[in-house]
Structure formats: structure tokens, C-alpha cells
């Protein structure tokens, strides 16, 4: 293929957008993210292609497989573009009706439209659905609108214009200044100012430097980076080219977890396509600047997401953190100056260069600029991927975008920042999304996982669960982390088992201080957070476990009696039907009794009982 020059890129962009504007073709945008693949979107896509062909509509409609639409709970999703009609939970069987009624008869197919759970009304247009109307897509601006495997789709929507500007019109200092003006802070968790990081590396003298992208995304509850790579891989590539120019590097790596085969495939295709067009490799866009990019697949180790561990892992060593300094900006990969940024951080860069740092900073709070992508999951209606302006409230994310808590349960807390982040209870739900404000209430922004927990969550059990995770993932190199997390876990297990004493709670708090001050890397330094933050807001639950030997949320098996309260039991038989061990004795109109010999303590009956009648 012909290599593009700057003029060539402009011409191509112009031609593509004119073609899109003039053609009387509607697009059928179908979500092809991993989530929708898993629920059968490929079958739907095939069925639509087939049906359109059968009905002779191929010159009127173009079927586009896009990246993740974001509203994963409703997948597979079809959006009819440009009018923006949103169809959800499609099955191949729905396709003939859909094609007949919408495409031929020009009517909406009511039963496939989104139904607002509050008003019970159907909402035809995507933009009117609350999940979308409260969002501000910047990083995700192409999400669901382009075929991520088509570089032309990307170019049509201003793709590689930021790169062109940075390579042909800007000096490295100007790029860094623009990124500094934007106020962009690292989206991988720590929130370090991106422009500053680049400045350090640009000032490190060396012939060889590296630009790395962290796509290891290991935090439980996080799937933002996967979705970005699946939906818009070129945006990440552009960010890396621009960073390379800023620090004068010519080689980059994307460290991607092997668990993300679709993201890796699309990214690789994007790299290859960019190279074929002269947007990667030697003399990009005729600018004289060279940059090569490779994907490095991680083989599954959480700690490899930490920056020094990630670099060691690329070097073919065990991915274990090392003490800093030296900082990677001076001595990183192969001892050369290196910058590492997160997928989402890079995905912002081209827009910052194209529209200016001030444009970027016009949204957000004083110290947290732009937008942030979150992955909401757990006990919430609209599980999925969302992007909101910094400064939006957590309440808005949980209720407006997230659609609130299912099954009429009460909200208890949200966990931000993964296991080593912290929980935020109801009384602080109005906290804005802002790096510093979130720290004030005892959590961290983290990389963007938002885990919503309802009233049935036991916070002590949750802390135990997170500690189990951290202990598992501790690489074992430094003693405070290895031994500290083991001790934490023992104490939490003791409390959950009903064998805890008040002194154990004190011991937890004392140890938290030690490990925070002495651990080598972020994993150990933050390991105490699940304990500290649950103790801060839910100390009463710890005390109930210790003093009354009672688990208020009824989750800790060893504190439960597995007995039916005859006063509360309505003899509905739900527990009888649900019990996998046939341990419930029940007849119509009679109250249930649990046979403790047979009971396997699986808690299924607790989950099924609507009357809170089992103790």
C-alpha cells in the first residue's frame, strides 16, 4: 500500500468523510466486544447480513461490527445510525422481525427497545437513555461508531490528525507543554501528571529510549482498558507515537495481558495497518520521525502491572518490583530512559494535541481534568463501561448511569481502586470524581473499577476476600508484604469464623501502619487499605462479629445457625425449591425447616428468601 504523506492523510480523510456524508446508506452498528461475542453477537451479525441480502437491502444498509458499546448488560446491541435507534438483547431469531418492521416498514420494534426500569417506558433513541445521557465520551468517542479493525473508519473521524500535528508542526517541548496544560494525570491508578513524567524522560540523555503502554489491567473489577483496545486501538497507538516524539524514543511496547485475545488481535491489526500506510515505522507521514511498536504478551501475573515489575518481565525476568530510585524515566527498560503510561492515558493524548490542552482542561475539577472511564459492576443494574467528566458525583455514576441497585435492595458501599483501594459508604456518595477528594474519604480513584455492593454484603468478609487476593498476588520478595498480608488474612479469617476478640481489631490497625511504611511497592504499601477503609466505616460490623458472634449481613457461614425463623417464614417454599442439597423440609402452607444433617451451608436459601426468615 502507498505510504501516506501529510497531504495524503488530509485527502484521504476528506474523501472518506465526503463519501460517508453523500452515501444514502444507514449503518447498522452491532457491538462486537468480547462481552457481546460471549452472548452471541456474531450470530446476530451473520443473521442480519443474511436477512439484508435476502431482502435486497445491501445498498441501503451497511453492517458494522463495532467495539464495545458500553451498555454491556443489554448486549448484544444494535444501533441504527444516523438516527440512533437502540435495540437490545438481540437474538438471531429477532432479526427477521427487526429487518421487516424497522428497515422495511419504518417502525420501531417496541419489544426490542430499551425499557426504563423506573418509568417502565420504552426509550427508542440511544441518546435519551439515562445510561448514555449522563456520559461525556472523549476517550470513548469512537466507541460503537467505528469498526475498530478499519483504519479508514478511524481516519474519517480525525484519526492520526493529532499525530500529524505533533510530528510535523510541534517541537518535543511544545508537545510536553500541551500535555502539561491539559492537566492529564495517569489513569493507571496513581494519577501522576503525564506531562511531567514525559518531561523527566525527555531530559534524560540517551540515544535509546522506550515508550511503554500498560495494558496489563489486573485490578479485579476493571475492564476499561480491554474495552478501549477492543473499540478504538488506533487511539492508543497515536498516543504512543506522540509520546515517543516528545521524549525522542523510537521503540515502544504494549504490555498486554494474554487474557485479552480480542484486544490483542485488534491492536495487532491496527499496528499492521498503520505501518502499511506509513503511520508507523520509518519516516512517519514523511516527517523524518521513526517509531516501531510491538505487543508483549504477559503470561498472567497481577504484580506485572506495577511499572518496574512490568519492565523486568519484558526483559525476560520474573516480573518483580524493584525499589525506586532509579526511576524508569532515568533507568527503565534495559536500563534506558523509559516512560510507562496506561492505555486510557494514551488514548487521551491525540485529542489533547489536536484540540489543545486548554480544551481538555475545560472539563473537570481544579486538580483533576478531563473525563474518566469507569467499569461499573457488582450489585448494580447497568453493568458496563461509562465515561463521565471529572467532578461528576459517585451517586450519579451509581444511580443515573448505573441505574441503581437491583431487586429493591439497599445500597451499602462502592469499592473504588480495586482490592487495595477503599470503600465509600452512602453518606459520602456525593463525593465528586476527583483524585484528591476521593482520597479524603479513604479510597483512591484507582484505575476505574467501580464495584457496587448492596446491603447483603458483609464488609468484614469483603475485607477478608480482598486480603486473600492481595496475599495470593504478593510476589513474596519483601517481608512486610509477604508476612503482613498473611497475618492480616489470619486475623480476618478468625473474625469471620466467630473466634475474634477486640484485641484482633487493634492488631489489624497496628499492623496496617507498619506494612504501609515498610513495603517495597504499591501492592504492599496499599495492602492494608481494605481493612482500614472497612474499619473506618463499618466498625460496627467488625464488633458484631467479635462481641456478639453475629454477621449482620448473614454471609459468614460459621456465624449462621441455618434455622428458619417461624415468625418470619411465610411458607412460600422458595428455599425448598432452591436448595441443591434437598435439606429443606417443606410442604404447601407449612413453614420450612432446615435439616442440618443434609445442609451444605451454601447460602442459596438465604439468597432466595425474600422475608429474611433464615438465621
Amino acid at each position, binding site marked *: 500500500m502507498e505510504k501516506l504523506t501529510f497531504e495524503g492523510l488530509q485527502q484521504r480523510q476528506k474523501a472518506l468523510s465526503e463519501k460517508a456524508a453523500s452515501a444514502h446508506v444507514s449503518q447498522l452498528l452491532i457491538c462486537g466486544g468480547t462481552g457481546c461475542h460471549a452472548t452471541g453477537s456474531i450470530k446476530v451479525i451473520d443473521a442480519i447480513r443474511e436477512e439484508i441480502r435476502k431482502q435486497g437491502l445491501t445498498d441501503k444498509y451497511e453492517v458494522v461490527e463495532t467495539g464495545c458499546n458500553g451498555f454491556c448488560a443489554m448486549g448484544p446491541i444494535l444501533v441504527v445510525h444516523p438516527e440512533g435507534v437502540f435495540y437490545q438483547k438481540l437474538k438471531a431469531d429477532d432479526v427477521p422481525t427487526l429487518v421487516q418492521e424497522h428497515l422495511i416498514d419504518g417502525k420501531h420494534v417496541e419489544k426490542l427497545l430499551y425499557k426504563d426500569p423506573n418509568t417502565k417506558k420504552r426509550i427508542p433513541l440511544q441518546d435519551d437513555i439515562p445510561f448514555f445521557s449522563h456520559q461525556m465520551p472523549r476517550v470513548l468517542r469512537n466507541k460503537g461508531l467505528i469498526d475498530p479493525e478499519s483504519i479508514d473508519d478511524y481516519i474519517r473521524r480525525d484519526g492520526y490528525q493529532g499525530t500529524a500535528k505533533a510530528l510535523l508542526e510541534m517541537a518535543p517541548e511544545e508537545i510536553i507543554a500541551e500535555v502539561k496544560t491539559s492537566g492529564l494525570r495517569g489513569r493507571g491508578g496513581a494519577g501522576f501528571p503525564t506531562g511531567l513524567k514525559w518531561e523527566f524522560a525527555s531530559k534524560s540523555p540517551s540515544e535509546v529510549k522506550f515508550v511503554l503502554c500498560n495494558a496489563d489491567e489486573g485490578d479485579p473489577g476493571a475492564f476499561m482498558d480491554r474495552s478501549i483496545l477492543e473499540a478504538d486501538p488506533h487511539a492508543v497507538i497515536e498516543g504512543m507515537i506522540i509520546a515517543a516524539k516528545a521524549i525522542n524514543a523510537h521503540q515502544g511496547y504494549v504490555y498486554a495481558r494474554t487474557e485479552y485475545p480480542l484486544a490483542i488481535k485488534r491492536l495487532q491489526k491496527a499496528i499492521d495497518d498503520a505501518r502499511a500506510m506509513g503511520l508507523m515505522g520509518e519516516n512517519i507521514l514523511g516527517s523524518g520521525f521513526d517509531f516501531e511498536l510491538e505487543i508483549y504478551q504477559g503470561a498472567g501475573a497481577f504484580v506485572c502491572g506495577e511499572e518496574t515489575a512490568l519492565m523486568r518481565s519484558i526483559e525476560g525476568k520474573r516480573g518483580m518490583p524493584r525499589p525506586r530510585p532509579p526511576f524508569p524515566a532515568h533507568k527503565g527498560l534495559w536500563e534506558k530512559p523509559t516512560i510507562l503510561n496506561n492505555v486510557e492515558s494514551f488514548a487521551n493524548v491525540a485529542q489533547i494535541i489536536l484540540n489543545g490542552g486548554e480544551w481538555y482542561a475545560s472539563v473537570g475539577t481544579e486538580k483533576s481534568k478531563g473525563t474518566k472511564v469507569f467499569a461499573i459492576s457488582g450489585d448494580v443494574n447497568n453493568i458496563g463501561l461509562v465515561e463521565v467528566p471529572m467532578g461528576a458525583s459517585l451517586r450519579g455514576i451509581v444511580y443515573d448511569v448505573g441505574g441503581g441497585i437491583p431487586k429493591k435492595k439497599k445500597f451499602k458501599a462502592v469499592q473504588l481502586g480495586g482490592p487495595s483501594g477503599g470503600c465509600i459508604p452512602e453518606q459520602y456518595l456525593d463525593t465528586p470524581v476527583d483524585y484528591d477528594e476521593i482520597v479524603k474519604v479513604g479510597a483512591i480513584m484507582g484505575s476505574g473499577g467501580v*464495584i457496587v455492593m448492596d446491603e447483603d454484603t458483609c464488609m468484614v468478609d469483603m475485607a477478608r476476600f480482598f486480603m486473600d*487476593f492481595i496475599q495470593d498476588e504478593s510476589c513474596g520478595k519483601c517481608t512486610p508484604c509477604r508476612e503482613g498480608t498473611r497475618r492480616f488474612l489470619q486475623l480476618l479469617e478468625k473474625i469471620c469464623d466467630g473466634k475474634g476478640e477486640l484485641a484482633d481489631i487493634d492488631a489489624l490497625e497496628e499492623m496496617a501502619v507498619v506494612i504501609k511504611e515498610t513495603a517495597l511497592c504499591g501492592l504492599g504499601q496499599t495492602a492494608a487499605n481494605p481493612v482500614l477503609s472497612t474499619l473506618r466505616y463499618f466498625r460496627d460490623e467488625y464488633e458484631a462479629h467479635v462481641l456478639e458472634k453475629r454477621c449482620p449481613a448473614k454471609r459468614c457461614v460459621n456465624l449462621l445457625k441455618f434455622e428458619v425463623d417461624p415468625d418470619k417464614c411465610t411458607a412460600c417454599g422458595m428455599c425448598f425449591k432452591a436448595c441443591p442439597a434437598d435439606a429443606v423440609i417443606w410442604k404447601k402452607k407449612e413453614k420450612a425447616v432446615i435439616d442440618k444433617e443434609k445442609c451444605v451451608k451454601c447460602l442459596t436459601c438465604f439468597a432466595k428468601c425474600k422475608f429474611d426468615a433464615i438465621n
Partner: protein
Amino acid sequence: MLSQQIQASKHPPELVVDVMMAVQEHYGYLSDEALEEAAAMVGMAPTKLDELATFYTFLYREPVGRYVIHLCDSVICWMDGYEPLRDHLCKKLGIQMGETTPDGLFTLLPVCCIGYCDRSPAMLINKKAYGPLTSEKIDEILETLRSEAAETTPS
């Protein structure tokens, strides 16, 4: 292909994980011999490779089944019913976590969050994501894989 890459690479150890993955793909798992072969390719000591292979979740030093099931045991999947599903899988396959079925078809392993929390509870089978899981869906998936295996294995 890989050997060309190794020759072209300035830092062959960079490719060690790729090489181990490829060798594993070929032999099914990283036996001592397989590890030595991989070590020779990248010019590193086999003990170094052993250190790596035991560090990473997706490198197997023990024989594994044709289908390696990694069931996510992280927070979202756990909240959404990991434990009963694990028990169901164990019962269906007649093995414990960490074991392989006697017919050599399935190995069952835990894994920490695989980033498919939007489809929880989730699992990977040979790196393909499945979810949201229920015990019925698990039965279906196992059935499909069993017949796929029967079709492609010469009897």
C-alpha cells in the same frame, strides 16, 4: 517464524515468554524437555525458565487437559456466585480444582480477575471468555467441547 524473530531481536530474553507459550502450545505443557528446548532457543539457562514458568498463571509445568478451564475467583465473580459454580464444575468433571479429568480433556484452575467482570461469573477456556455463567450454561459448554473433541480426535 519465532526463530527468525529471535535472531532479529536485540534482546532475545524478551521473547522468552512467547517462546515458552509456543513450545507449550506444541507439547501441551512445559515438561523438563520442553523447557530445555525453549531455553536453548533463547540462550538462557533452563532454571531461569523454570522460575518464569512457575511464576506465570498461563504457563503450565504439569500436564494439562486439552481444554484448560480458568474459573475467575475474583470479587465480582465471587459476588455473583463463584462458589456454587465451582462446586458444580468440580462435580460435573469429577475432579477438584487444580486437577485434570482422567480422559485428559479438562483441567480446572482458578484465575484472578480476567477482566470480563461485565459478564460475571466468567471463565476462560483456552483463553476464550465465557459468561455470565449458570450451571446450565456450564453443562452446555462442556457438552459442546466434549463433542468437538470427539469429532476431531481420530479414533
